[in-house]
């Protein structure tokens, strides 16, 4: 027994040694040789200056340009340099943008490997910005296909539309900016401003596109000094393409109709009689959508209910300026209601008449409450929506008035 235990132990020891010494990662890659793809912007084809120069010097690339994509790549090899007191311009930003034009996104990203040694890694993609012209031209499902198939790119990236050139959004505004990280962060401000849409990420974009119902995608606009979340793009369900935009004012109304108890934002009153402005901060919104059908025509009753506080008033009739009454509040409530109803009617008219697309999801109520009908008509929903009879009723209650006392 004891005699056999020594060779056995040696054997065991050698096994462990083997495990420790020869073990390793099969396909390991040094982080310095990689670059992390954090943002992608896709646009209608428009070869960059350097690409045109390449065409001149070395012609003969086999392609009919369909799409231009811009990649924001974080270069881990540069990050180390930032802390130091370098005056070098390039090392102050740890990323670079690379633009490539080609037939497909896979081709584009692989083409990058001819231009840089750092291979882009897709795991950390945070945001995909789509230029409005591309979205008008193609079904979103076509050029996003690659992202859905790729096994590195996750389903978590935020998807935005950019009215204008999407690649512009990836240009840093100030030294040290990393747009790929900052753009998707702004979505979190939802709790402060109701003009930001519920974020659409790859996972729910996929479902919506496949369901072939219309929806809204957050729009961003790049000005010289800023990148602003502004309005939304209307994506038509049947074609999967962008067919128009909603304004910021419309977005407020969308927020009301979608309801869901979300906090955030305000309702503004600009009334010559009362003096202006008068702002209600919204504390809670409830929306009830009741569908019905008669003779093949749909009708919706949208009931909006909200509570809020009067948080800013320039009115000479308000507290602090003497002479305030319950009646004043009642009047403000009534005027707010009227204003909101007006906005809602405008939005609905725009969606029904101009776009003919149910981008605010009224179909959800039909899908849930009339499943049999829905399965019969869902392919043709936008047409039914355009002909539907939609009435909006609003009830607003001002519950508070901030720290200013009523006197």
């Amino acid at each position: 027994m004891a005699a056999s235990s020594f060779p056995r132990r040696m054997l065991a020891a050698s096994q462990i040694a083997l495990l420790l010494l020869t073990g390793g990662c099969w396909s390991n890659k040094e982080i310095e040789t990689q670059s992390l793809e954090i943002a992608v912007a896709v646009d209608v084809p428009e070869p960059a200056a350097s690409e045109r120069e390449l065409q001149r010097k070395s012609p003969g690339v086999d392609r009919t340009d369909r799409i231009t994509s811009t990649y924001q790549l974080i270069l881990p090899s540069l990050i180390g340099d930032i802390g130091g007191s370098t005056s070098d311009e390039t090392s102050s930003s740890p990323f670079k943008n690379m633009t490539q034009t080609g037939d497909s996104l896979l081709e584009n990203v692989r083409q990058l490997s001819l231009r840089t040694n750092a291979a882009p890694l897709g795991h950390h993609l945070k945001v995909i910005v789509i230029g409005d012209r591309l979205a008008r031209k193609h079904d979103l499902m076509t050029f996003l296909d690659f992202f859905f198939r790729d096994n590195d790119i996750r389903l978590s990236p935020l998807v935005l539309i950019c009215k204008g050139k999407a690649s512009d959004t990836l240009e840093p505004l100030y030294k040290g900016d990393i747009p790929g990280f900052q753009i998707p962060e702004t979505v979190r401000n939802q709790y402060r401003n109701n003009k930001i849409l519920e974020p659409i990420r790859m996972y729910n974009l996929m479902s919506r596109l496949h369901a072939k119902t219309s929806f809204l995608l957050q729009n961003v606009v790049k000005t010289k000094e800023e990148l602003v979340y502004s309005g939304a793009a209307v994506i038509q369900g049947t074609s999967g393409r962008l067919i128009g935009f909603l304004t910021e004012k419309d977005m407020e109304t969308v927020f009301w109709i979608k309801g869901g108890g979300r906090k955030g934002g305000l309702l503004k009153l600009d009334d010559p009689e009362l003096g202006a402005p008068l702002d209600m901060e919204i504390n809670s919104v409830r929306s009830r959508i009741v569908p019905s059908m008669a003779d093949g025509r749909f009708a919706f009753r949208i009931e909006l209910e909200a509570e809020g506080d009067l948080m800013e008033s320039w009115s000479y009739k308000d507290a602090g300026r003497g002479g305030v009454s319950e009646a004043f509040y009642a009047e403000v409530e009534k005027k707010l209601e009227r204003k909101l109803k007006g906005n809602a009617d405008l939005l609905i008219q725009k969606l029904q008449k101009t776009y003919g697309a149910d981008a605010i999801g009224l179909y959800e109520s039909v899908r849930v409450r009339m499943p049999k009908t829905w399965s019969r008509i869902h392919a043709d929903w936008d047409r039914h929506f355009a002909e539907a009879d939609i009435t909006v009723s609003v009830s607003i209650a001002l519950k508070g008035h901030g720290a200013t006392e009523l006197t």
Partner: protein
Amino acid sequence: MNADKLTNTQISILIVNYMLATAILVLPRMLVDKAGTPDVWLSLMLAGVISAAGGWLASRLSLSFPGETIFQYGRKLIGKGLGAAFGTSLVLYFLVICGLEARSLEEITTKYLLEGTPSWAVTLPFLWLGAYLVLGGIQAIVQASDLIFPLTGFILLVVLLLSLRVVEFSHLLPVLGQGLPPVLRSMKTAAFAYSGPELMLLLVAYMKRPRSAGKAYAAAIAICMAFYVVTTVIVIGAFSIDGVTLRTWPTIDLIRSFEIPGLIFERYESLILAIWIMKFFSTFVLALFASSLGISQLFRVPFRTAVFAQLPFIYIVQELPKTIEDVFRVWDYLSMAGAALSVGVPALLLVLQRWKKGAAHGRV
């Protein structure tokens, strides 16, 4: 022999580990594909009840032959030829399960975890380690299983809770909007998730208290059902029935749909996959144990030989399906075969055995 006997809890855990592996990663898609409505969680519940009944039947049958497995008592019940034929088909069934389980592991690992690593380098250690554990006998398997179950269960639960942030429960409405037919349509697919009764044909022989085998099995089904239903509800809640049918591995994609900044990891799919390999392993090991036991008892071959002789065949089965779709197709057939082998045949055998007993009594 008595030291080898297993408690009820151990049997339950063994069965949970056996059932809860690949199915949970693909179930939501397969079910919704068939049903076309979000009500598939109902079919999962119904199928669970049916599987529990099947397990109970199989246990009843095994009870009549204490300490013997189906491979041993089969011939007593239906004669040498038929008994061997049934035993062999069970062995083949388990062998194909081994192959498919190894293939699923290969597919997921080379796609999401170790891209670039050759598939043989992923699967060979898996097969060899499995064989090694099986050689240790049922006790070794049970001990490994006892370790694997709480770890995998806990982590899956945590990750499912984290993924609630991408869930919209309205995607699960309407309930029964198209009535019951879609639920029944997807029942067959749901059965795939509960292949387990066949194990009771041989595991009861190892139980300390074989009388409560049915109860142990029902407990295992209840645990699996809870995991299945919660996972399916969450996956459909995230993707809606329109999205879920577009993904090969919807449950992995669920975890790939969110990032959580500032909580140890930002991305959880690698963690859950690395952990879930243990589940693949438990299923593989138990199936390999079952088929080896069958071969050694049917053909009187040493257990060791049976284990090693099968490995090449398992590898061939594993590599036979060309695409992942083929894998799922084979799995579909297999789950039907499993239902027949584990519920249909035992039911017949049970009737036969009762009838024989009755006839014997009548004569005496």
